[in-house]
């Protein structure tokens, strides 16, 4: 009886000791990892330069259709991770439709936002980024139609809207690529999802084209193709 009691006490002490040893071993392993991590801290400078770019899609649209924009951007590189961006552009449209309606507008616009490098290796020469923009434009549009006859009374009807003042606020979600070609020259493209925040489309309550946003709608997709120069 006495012997059985001694054996069970011995087993309990052994189990407790083993548990304590395992616990201590894990704690020291984690401390080692933490020390190792601290030693690998990024030493890259905060300001890594900036770049300027111009979009090629907008001028191509103006060439091939009757609306489009000229756009340039300034992007600041922070630690190869964060890229605060300002984009400024000038959009215009002079569209004649088969219905006889002519729509004309032109105005500047701007966007501000930030892109984030989503590649694992942040210091690669090429960048895959995702980001956002806030955008705003204030513009005036002119809409007119050749004179036509009232279908019931036969009067001559003049349809003309001139200098209709409007504004548009919208958000963009951006995903894009920046690839180094040679020296400071990069090429890149981006795809954007645009979402209208608020707008006032004047007395007629509708716009067809909004500078910087595109064909008026509550949301739409767009894209850019950029020539980028590192400064």
């Amino acid at each position, binding site marked *: 009886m006495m012997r059985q009691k001694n054996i069970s006490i011995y087993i309990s002490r052994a189990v407790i000791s083993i548990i304590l040893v395992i616990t201590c071993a894990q704690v020291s392993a984690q401390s080692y990892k933490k020390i190792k991590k601290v030693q690998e801290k990024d030493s890259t400078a905060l300001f890594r330069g900036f770049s300027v770019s111009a979009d090629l899609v907008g001028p191509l649209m103006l060439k091939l259709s009757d609306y489009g924009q000229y756009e340039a951007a300034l992007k600041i590189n922070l630690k190869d991770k964060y890229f605060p961006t300002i984009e400024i552009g000038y959009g215009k449209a002079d569209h004649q439709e088969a219905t006889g309606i002519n729509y004309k507008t032109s105005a500047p616009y701007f966007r501000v936002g930030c892109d984030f490098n989503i590649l694992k290796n942040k210091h690669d020469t090429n960048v895959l980024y995702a980001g956002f923009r806030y955008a705003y434009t204030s513009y005036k549009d002119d809409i007119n139609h050749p004179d036509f006859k009232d279908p019931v009374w036969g*009067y001559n009807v003049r349809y003309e809207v001139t200098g209709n003042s409007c504004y548009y606020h919208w958000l963009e979600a951006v995903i894009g690529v920046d690839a180094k070609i040679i020296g400071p020259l990069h090429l890149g493209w981006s*795809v954007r999802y645009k979402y209208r925040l608020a707008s006032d489309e004047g007395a007629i309550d509708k716009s067809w084209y909004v500078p910087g946003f595109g064909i008026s709608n509550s949301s739409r997709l767009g894209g850019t193709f950029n020539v980028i120069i590192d400064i």
Partner: protein
Amino acid sequence: MRKIVFVIFASLLLCACSTIDCPLLNTVYTVYNIYNSNGKADTLKDTLTIFSRRVNGTDSVFINQDVNIKTFSLPISYSAPADTLYFNIKDTLKKNYIDTVVVMKENTPHFESVDCNPSYFHKITGVKWTKNRIDSITIKNSTVNYDATKEHFHIYFKSGN
């Protein structure tokens, strides 16, 4: 990476499509509801014809010898400052009455899309009438647009034979 690029371009292609929501008819109408002197909806038992004069002098008939009507819709001109309408009412004894109604309005060009024909919306600013068979006309809703469910006028006829 190739799959991501394919998905992005497929999405761009889909979103390049757009829908056009033009109304079927780009004219708007004024709605008249008939009421009696107690303010309750009523039915006009007499024969009603409503017409207007076109700019070339010919008549344009909107309602042609309709009977037992409770409500009717009339077109409104795009850009004239006032429309003149002629109400020809023939009672059960075949006696004819003609009343003239003048609707004064402000006209605003309306724009849906470059794909839609031009149209106008209106704000009724006043109404005048002769009192041969029409007792009175009141404006209930001065805005005239594509919403055809709203009544614009209450019209009260004098009791006839």
